[in-house]
């Protein structure tokens, strides 16, 4: 290493004719601009987000939590509190209750299921702990909001299907529209119009 650096030092100390010409005719600049110029004729890799494009992540993505139902539409969450127990940052609160109306897959359902996103680090341990596969970390990632209160999400919201269905493969950019609500800004995807980016 040392030898190498002394070599470099020797070379740079004497300015050659070639280098001088390069400087005079902006060769480096032209070379750089040429690359830039070339890219204007290749596919675009940037996204027009949030105005009219949005990236849909892969299934394995760990975003906002979602509580799922089974095929018959019954709530899968049985309020077992295991997610709460497994969470390293203690941001989940589950209060179970008895329900005999058949809303859930058992007579025990979550009366309250709440997550404090300000503390969540999206590690996914809660998902691993869930015995009924009720809890998944979904593909919602636009979590900024105008109020702190909004960072506490409860079952009522999480049990609604997220805009991106579970079956949807992801890994694409789709067309989207920017929607400004009073609580937050959302970019609404239109999954039917998509383009692969590679």
């Amino acid at each position: 290493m040392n030898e190498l650096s002394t070599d470099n030092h020797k070379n740079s100390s004497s300015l050659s004719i070639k280098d001088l010409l390069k400087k005079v005719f902006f060769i480096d600049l032209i070379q750089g601009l040429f690359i830039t110029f070339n890219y204007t004729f290749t596919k675009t890799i940037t996204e027009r987000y949030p105005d009219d494009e949005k990236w849909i992540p892969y299934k394995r993505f760990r975003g906002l939590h979602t509580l799922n139902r089974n095929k018959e539409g019954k709530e899968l969450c049985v309020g077992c509190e295991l997610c709460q127990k497994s969470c390293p940052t203690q941001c989940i609160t589950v209060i179970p209750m008895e329900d005999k109306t058949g809303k859930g897959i058992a007579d025990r359902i979550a009366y309250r299921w709440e997550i404090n996103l300000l503390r969540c680090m999206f590690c996914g341990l809660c998902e691993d702990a869930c015995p009924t596969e009720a809890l998944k970390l979904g593909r919602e990632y636009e979590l900024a909001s105008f109020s702190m209160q909004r960072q506490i999400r409860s079952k009522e919201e999480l049990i609604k299907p997220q805009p991106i269905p579970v079956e949807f493969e992801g890994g694409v950019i789709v067309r989207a529209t920017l929607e400004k609500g009073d609580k937050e800004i959302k970019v609404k995807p239109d999954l039917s119009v998509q383009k692969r980016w590679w």
Partner: protein
Amino acid sequence: MATVKINGKEITIDDGTLILDAAKTAGFDIPTMCFHARLSKLASCRVCLVEIVGQKKLQPSCVTPVMHGMEVLTESPVVKSARSSMIELLLANHPLDCPVCDKGGECELQDITFKFGPRQSPFGDNKRRFNEEDYILSPVIVQNANRCIQCKRCVRICAETVGVGVLGSIERGAKTGETSFVREYLDCDHCGNCIEVCPVGSLMSRSYRYKSRPWDLKGVDTVCVYCGTGCQLTVQARKDEVVRVISKPEEGINNETLCARGRYGYSFINSIDRLLVPMVRMGNTLEPTTWEDAVRAVRNGLSEAINKGKKIGGIASSRLSNEELYLFQKLMRGVLKTNNIDSGSRWDTAAVKTYAEIMELSKGGLSIYDALNTDTLLILGFGISDENPVTDYIIRRISGNKKMNIIMASPRGMKLDNSAVLSIRHNPGTEGVIIGGILKLIYDKNINSLKNLGGKDYLKDLSKEKVSDITKTAWQDIEAASGYIMASNTITVAVGSDVLRVPSRIEFLRMLIEALRILGKDVKLFPLFDRSNQRGALEMGVHPDILPGYNFIDGDGLGADGIIDAASRGEVGALYLAGEDILSDFPDGVFAREALRQTKFLVVQDILPTETTEFADVILPGSSHAEKDGTFTNGERRIQLVRKAIEPLGGKADWETICLVAKALGIKNMEYSSPSEIWDELAGLAPMFAGVNHKKLEPDGIQWPCPDIDHPGTAIMYTEKFNRPNGKALFNFREHIASAEVPDDKYPLILSTGRRRQHYNNGSMTRRSNAIFNQWPEESLELNPFDARRFNIKDSEKVLASSRRGEMEVKVHVTDRVQPGITFLAFHNRDALTNLLTNDALDPVCKIPEYKSCAIKIEKLNGHK
């Protein structure tokens, strides 16, 4: 002693110790499932198998005792694989629905599977299912029989300890049916002990159903507030809501058992109608106000009474802590300069004093286990199975393991009768005469040795006929009782507070005790109290004639009955009721109501609205036992810590409120930073508590006397003989006066009143606990089948019951718990307003209203209306 080697470690241990216990001593834990230390041995699960060197078959360590020279292996490969297979078998039919199951997180099956069990199961067959949905077994139990592992702990505890035996199962082996109710749920005590011992989630508590997980709960160890047994329990809260009460296997005299009240009577704590803000009367209504204003109003009311020279009275409930009772009596005596102070309003004040003397309360007493180390146990004047259920369990459990004659004397049948050799049924209020009869027999046979017996003259006119006539008891029973007593060397006399209601001839008890001692018998006295801190109240001096530490005085103070009496004549200027619902408690409701109306200024400090609070001029919100620190003293003089589980909902604990009132009255030396400081002050006043402080009371409490700080407390004491020399005992004899109202043709039945196992006094606390209240949603009048036939009344029929003073509609429960001619109604239910029916004739000698009985008639409703 036997020397055994366990996993190579040699220990020497008592003969007959179970291998299980020996291994624990040696430091090896053997898993168990069906084993329970205080129940009979079953050895059905085989999880506890161990290898004994030299024996081919593995042995269950929970039933096999050690033998000298034995070599035991608990961790050998054979044992490990056998253990794992046994667990595999338990799991073969187990549904594994842990996420739903309420036991999850504290399930013994989960724990042992995790620790020792197989990681997978080879069984692919469908699991056996008894039920598709959990079902409600009783008002307190919900069951999922699929999870049952047939350990029969529930069956055993219900039969052996609780003594009702409503659980069972049929068939054997893999075909075993579900373990569940084999009798009607009305026979169930609703005590929940089966739930507590069930190792899995087969029997579950209804009130705790799907409320939480054990790891979310914060618990404090405290003492039950409902009766004088003083069971230790753990109140568990999730956030600020108390969600359940459990008990610990190794702590307290109750050893894991609790009764229905202790286990389920907590809902009142978070009840929505709790009194949370102070209220002051404005004209006809009570208006919410601030603490400052309320306390100022109290000060003004009390000062006015003082200035006008009117009487001031104070009645504190004996469910307040020792510290609060002490402060209350300090406020009354020290600040308001009056001895008109009492705890509870049900008893004759003078009789309480006599009782305290006869039962030698000031000398201490025995622990319950000591008292039960006896040949004959005489239980008198107490519905023990209903009032002190856990004492009943303890007696049953101990009497099951050894020879002990139990003699029960009570007007109404009860569970413990099954364990008794003799049950004497007598007319309500005639306990003293029963004792007189027994004493008479003993005296007649031992005239020579008993010639110095004090008060023997009173026995002269007590003939066999007279006793039978007053008590309505067969003379043979009394003969049998005296026979058992004379044949024993050690006799424990357990006397309950019922004798304080109709205390005539309570002196016979004093004579009987003395006579037996003269005859060379070892007499142990065991007082039974129905309220959690009744004994504490006496020890703290909440009695007109007793100063803290049992300093008896002959003061001029009035007891509760005297105060009410004076109030009815308009002589009372101010009355301070701390936690006492006098209208439900006082024998004669009509009279007490009138007395409260005549009282110029009434302060009520209570946690829940009662009838009495409606009469209040100022209401100060009280705090429940879960909201403060303090101590209770149980019947066996054990001082135990009551701990705070949640902050006082009304903002102040009772002791703080009393201090505030004192401060408002300009008193300087009644400011404390904690109950422990109050305790230290009172300990300084009474030598028997001198060495006790709050820190020292963990975990099991201390039995006084404990004269200095290094003293461990005194479990057994009281070897001295009778403190008054022969023939010189002070007598305050009262003849038996027949009930002022004897049944006649017009009102042919006797109505007696008392309480039910599931309720506590006026029921204002227990009725708020749905788990309990559901069991007796409607008060019913107990009627003997014989009378039911006589009046042509069916079970559950509604009838009109009337006395000379009032009438009420009530449902009839036909049962042989009551004798023919006697009916029973509990006083827990406000709707029933039992005390409208009771007798307002004051006992002419001791002025106590006849609480236990009056004459009534019942009529069929359809014929009447």
